[in-house]
């Protein structure tokens, strides 16, 4: 069995995660975690939809920010996809998508303040980078033959509209709709940095112990995402996109002098601003590396590796829940509901809830990342396993799982897992804002201390780390000849 490169790779990653566990800070520090967890679940099953009139506004704002952000991101991403062959564009896109929406929000908050533009750009910019990449991949796969048959003097635009777009239309539409769902999740968590979306109300309900209000919010959010096929219709889309900008709320006006100061002073490394000049840069960088960047990177990498393997284990355990090869319709339906809840809860919200209940440590982060990502991968390979046709005398039960199904889906399972490696790392970094000592923690504290120069530098380091893992993940997938479709 160890001859197989996929198995060997899996065990290497398992070993890394086990070693990582030795160094990871895994603990439940809350004094009575089970009572808190019980209270929370009681809140979810007794939701209170009417206590807070802010709830409906928060929902409306969440949808509006998602629509405006994703629409802007999709349009700019499409335009970028047309020139994606150009190396500077590819680098720019890789860079903007390596920075998490919440980091973008934190940056824009410093100079736009609580203006709707902050939330819109925080979604639109990283999404533009992702759209550009995926759109260009889709367009590249269009059949080139019809284009070669066109009369020689055909205009570039006509050729593009007739031979490329129709061939890719279904895929472009499916991916964009899927991204809209991701956009709703991104929009919801923007509330955690103070924008008027669901996260904001969730945080305040939690801090006051109003679990029934929090439960109502979560349930409404699931319903919103689960019913998307019903209310997101092609004919209604223009209405939503044109209407959404009017429901972003007023926010606070932009102070343009802040914008200028941010770029010309705040983010300039402090030695360059003061009298030390370039001579002081060495000490400044060294101090930042030793006290902030290195501990942040170390914790981010450990947490990522542990969460990656935990995600894999959850996915392998969860996929039989929806596979047609196991259980009856009742179990499959409940399996579907379970996986939908796991994957539609943003990992940030999940981590926030668990952190409130269990106290600060890496454990809530690992569990949240594993549940969310494991739910996504479990759903994808569960669906794939249902399309496998077994011989009629195939074994049942555990032997069916170990001999018939897992070997057949293992390669695509690994492909999805390595695809999500970079996503897990991006999320791990951002969970630092909740108080786990990953890179996000150091970014957030630098901002609290009004050291925007350090914050920017740490964000750049985080982005490079994500790009590095993305490259490594792609290298491993190519080495093992694994192929996959993009997931968010």
């Amino acid at each position, binding site marked *: 069995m160890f001859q197989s490169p996929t198995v060997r790779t899996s065990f290497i990653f398992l070993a890394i995660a086990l070693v990582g566990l030795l160094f990871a800070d895994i603990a439940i520090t809350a004094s009575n975690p089970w009572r808190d967890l019980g209270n929370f679940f009681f809140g979810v099953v007794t939701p209170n939809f009417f206590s807070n009139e802010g709830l409906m506004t928060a929902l409306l704002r969440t949808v509006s920010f998602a629509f405006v952000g994703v629409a802007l991101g999709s349009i700019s991403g499409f335009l970028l996809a047309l020139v994606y062959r150009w190396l500077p564009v590819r680098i720019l896109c890789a860079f903007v998508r390596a920075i998490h929406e919440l980091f973008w929000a934190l940056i824009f908050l410093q100079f736009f303040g609580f203006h709707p533009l902050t939330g819109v750009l925080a979604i639109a910019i990283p999404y533009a980078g992702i759209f550009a990449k995926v759109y260009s991949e889709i367009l590249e796969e269009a059949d080139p033959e019809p284009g070669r048959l066109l*009369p020689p003097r055909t*205009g570039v635009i*006509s050729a593009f509209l007739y031979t490329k777009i129709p061939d890719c239309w279904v895929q472009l539409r499916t991916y964009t709709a899927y991204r809209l769902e991701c956009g709703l999740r991104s929009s919801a968590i923007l509330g955690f940095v103070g924008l008027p979306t669901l996260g904001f109300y969730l945080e305040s309900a939690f801090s006051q112990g109003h679990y029934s209000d929090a439960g109502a919010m979560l349930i409404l959010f699931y319903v919103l995402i689960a019913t998307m096929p019903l209310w997101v219709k092609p004919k209604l889309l223009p209405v939503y996109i044109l209407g959404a900008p009017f429901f972003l709320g007023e926010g606070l006006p932009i102070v343009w002098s802040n914008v200028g100061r941010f770029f010309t002073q705040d983010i300039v490394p402090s030695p360059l601003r003061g009298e030390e000049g370039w001579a002081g840069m060495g000490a400044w960088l060294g101090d930042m590396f030793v006290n902030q960047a290195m501990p942040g990177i170390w914790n981010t990498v450990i947490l990522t590796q542990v969460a990656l393997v935990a995600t894999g284990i959850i996915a392998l355990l969860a996929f039989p829940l929806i596979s047609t090869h196991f259980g009856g319709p009742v179990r499959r339906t409940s399996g579907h509901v379970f996986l939908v809840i796991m994957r539609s809860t943003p990992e940030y919200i999940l981590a926030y809830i668990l952190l409130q209940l269990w106290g600060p440590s890496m454990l809530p982060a690992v569990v949240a990342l594993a549940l969310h990502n494991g739910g996504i991968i479990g759903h994808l390979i569960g669906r794939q396993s249902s399309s496998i046709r077994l011989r009629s005398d195939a074994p049942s039960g555990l032997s069916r799982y170990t001999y018939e199904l897992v070997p057949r889906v293992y390669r695509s399972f690994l492909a999805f897992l390595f695809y999500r490696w970079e996503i897990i790392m991006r999320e791990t970094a951002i969970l630092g804002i909740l108080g786990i000592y990953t890179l996000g923690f150091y970014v957030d504290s630098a901002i609290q201390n009004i050291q925007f120069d350090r914050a920017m530098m740490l964000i750049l380091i985080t982005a490079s780390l994500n790009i590095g893992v993305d490259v490594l993940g792609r290298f491993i997938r190519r080495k093992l000849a694994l192929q996959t479709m993009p997931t968010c």
Partner: protein
Amino acid sequence: MAGFDLSGLTASFGGERVIGPLSLKVKEGEQVALVGKSGAGKSTLMRLIHQHVNRNSSLVPQELGLVNALPVFHNVFMGRLDQHGNWYNTVTLMRPFSRDKDKVRELLKALGMAEKLWIPTASLSGGQRQRVAIARALYRSAPLLLADEPISALDGPMAHQVMQLLKDRFSASVFALHDVEMALAYCNRIVGIQDGQIALDEPAERLVASDIMSLY
């Protein structure tokens, strides 16, 4: 200029020469049939000619090159995208003009599928798809036709109807055909291809089917 005069045509695949070097001259009024066994290089030669005449020809490739998601009308209309500006083509994509509709419908009527005008080509049968590619070549109405096995998926009467139509509409044409009887019936010059070289080049009236069979 309906014909062409090409020399030094060569093509390699994976480092191995599959065509030529060969020369081929086609004059106005000539209907040339390329015959030979499959793999002899007919399709490659077709593509070479298409490139060398700077794509100034109506091409019916073996793979048809249809945009499956678009209806029949737009696939045919694509033959003349160069005749209109971008705005005209873009509007047509959403709401075709009636004069274009009439022209395309007439062509399709001649090919026995006028009722399929708005059906996406993805849902057509093989023979219907082949006729859409032929309609696009006819609509293009370049003086030269290059058709690679244009009747391979058509039944007897329809195959004859299509060959007659193509013969009448183009002042010069090159067909790759595996059906020797069809080649002799509708073409006035037969060019036999063997191992990437021209092994036979005679007027059709001087040949009978058995002369050609030696190539196979």
